[in-house]
């Protein structure tokens, strides 16, 4: 990080009565970054962005933008703008008046306002004749774009998104995720996005911050979150990962499932290590018994799920551990359900997650 980061959130605590929503969190955001905050409901992610835009006040701590404190500034004076989950478009105004609203407040001349509004409509791939339409005449995706246009018209230093895509259907959401990333690249604005979907975060973000009970669990680039989660919580966020209970024994990993064979010396672990060993479903493959991988285990196919380009298997080992395997569709097993199989994986596919994870600060 540079000496003076663009946004610096420092030791921020937010309490609602006796409930602590945010517990001494710190976060730096770089200029032009696309940062996504991911967490389950009640993790404090919404609270954090409400503090950032000024809808709520911080209990303790400071928020600085370019070195200037903004946490004491009223919401209507801050150079931040939020795209609400409900979008919060003004239903009594036309699309044009919605987009021009922030410019009108800045006393920009009507002609310039309109020119900018039309420019934003084009930027967001909406037809120019939408200028005169009412909000009620628009589809969900179009409203989404108008809300974005209005935020951009405000010309904020930071645009904050409060799960704006969560109400949309899957296909539209996928399209808009990509458009948002594209828009971020074209405008160069700093985006702070919150969602409960890590998948959504992965598509768009430069960095991802995972929140749990008012604290950051991990803040890192998508690739690191994906392959090197610091805790079971982060690992479980990505859906189906295989976690094996394990402990250190004579410098090596003792896998919880007795059926797992280490063929080439096992996995080295520090003394006294306890925790879970994570193996991603796509890093498992079908091998011949006792060869072709650093670790193997025998099991039975319980179920098979076609996922389009990929295929997923639920496999029970002989010791009864459920393992998820994901392969390209071309590598579909010829044998059907209940067939005996041997799974294999390599040492570098294993990511150890120690108990008692440290709390991330970045």
């Amino acid at each position, binding site marked *: 990080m540079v000496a003076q980061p663009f946004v610096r959130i420092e030791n921020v605590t937010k309490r609602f009565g006796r409930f602590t929503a945010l517990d001494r969190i710190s976060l730096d955001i770089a200029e032009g970054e696309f940062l996504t905050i991911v967490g389950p409901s009640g993790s404090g992610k919404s609270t954090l962005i409400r503090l950032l835009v000024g809808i709520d006040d911080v209990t303790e701590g400071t928020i600085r933008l370019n070195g200037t404190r903004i946490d004491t500034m009223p919401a209507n004076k801050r150079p931040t703008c*939020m795209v609400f989950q409900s979008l*919060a478009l003004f239903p009594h105004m036309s699309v044009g008046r919605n987009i021009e609203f922030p410019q009108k407040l800045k006393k920009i001349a009507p002609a310039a306002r309109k020119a900018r509004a039309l420019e934003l409509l084009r930027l967001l791939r909406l037809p120019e004749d939408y200028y005169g339409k009412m909000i009620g005449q628009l589809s969900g995706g179009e409203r989404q774009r108008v809300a974005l246009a209005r935020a951009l018209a405000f010309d904020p230093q930071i645009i904050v998104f409060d799960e704006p895509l969560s109400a949309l259907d899957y296909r539209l959401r996928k399209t808009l995720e990509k458009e948002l990333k594209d828009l971020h690249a074209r405008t160069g604005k700093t985006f702070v996005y919150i969602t409960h979907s890590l998948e959504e975060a992965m598509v768009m973000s430069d960095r991802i911050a995972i929140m749990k009970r008012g604290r950051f669990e991990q803040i890192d680039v998508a690739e690191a979150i994906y392959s090197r989660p610091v805790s079971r919580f982060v690992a479980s966020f990505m859906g189906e990962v295989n976690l094996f209970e394990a402990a250190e024994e004579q410098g090596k990993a003792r896998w919880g499932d007795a059926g797992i064979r280490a063929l080439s010396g096992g996995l080295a672990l520090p003394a006294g290590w306890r925790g879970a060993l994570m193996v991603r479903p796509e890093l498992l493959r079908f091998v011949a018994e006792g060869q072709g991988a650093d670790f193997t285990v025998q099991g039975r196919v319980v179920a098979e799920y076609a996922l389009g380009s990929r295929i997923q298997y639920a496999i029970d080992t002989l010791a009864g551990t459920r393992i998820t395997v994901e392969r390209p569709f071309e590598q579909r097993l010829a044998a059907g359900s209940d067939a005996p199989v041997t799974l294999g994986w390599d040492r570098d596919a294993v990511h150890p997650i120690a108990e008692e994870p440290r709390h991330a600060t970045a």
Partner: protein
Amino acid sequence: MQRLESRLGFLSGLPILILLLLAFIMPLFVVAGFAIMPQKVFELTHLPDFSSFAVIWEQGYYRSLLRSLGLAFLTTVILFIVCWPLAYGMAKVFGRFTIVITLAVVLILFVSENIRLFGWSLSLMKGGLIEGYLRSWTGLSFETPLYDWPVIVFGMAYVYFPFMLFPLAQGISLVPDDARLAASDLGASPARILFEIEMPLAAPGIMVGSLLTFVLSAGAVAEAKLLGGRSVVVLTDDVESAFTFAQNWPLGSALSLMLIGIVALLVLVPVSRVNLDAIMGRKR
């Protein structure tokens, strides 16, 4: 099946239809009929000569009509300003405490309007509850505010308060919190939010509340009589004396008809422009 259902709809609507016809439409026609009769007749069998309207113009009855409308307008504006903060609180701030206010306001309605106005009259009169005690305790005295137009406006605002408050609260509850927050986030000051976001979005409630208070105030009788003591003559006074003291039904009918016509005009224009479905709970 379809036909049976549509007939059921008609049949279930029949009682209220008959009631409306007999109790609402018919009297209106009778009033309209008398309005065009010659002066001081008691039958509708005469040739219409529209002389009542000439009398209204010549004898300056239109002045009391304007007075009525003016006082009603003033009452509506005052009530809107007074009720907005409370209605806002009821819709957005007070939470469960709202029910206490609602009950308090509704309980007032249980006491007859006339009794409440007499109460004010006794409180405000010279030597009444307020001035009398003040004089006996401090020796100070003040002129009674009774028998003038401001006290009539006060009385109407007092009596029609709930008719503004509840529709207004309902209207304000239609304003999404996010819209207000978003406007603030986009740089709007509280005043801007009030005029550009909250008031337009609460418009159905404002409209219903204003129309109720305006229509009721324009046709109010008791306030002018009990608090104004006939020092201020409003149109309803003229109507009453035309029907009773002057025994001139055509004049009274013509005056009523004018009030009905003008109020209807003032009401229908805004109603046609605002979506009343919104306040009835249907989504916009």
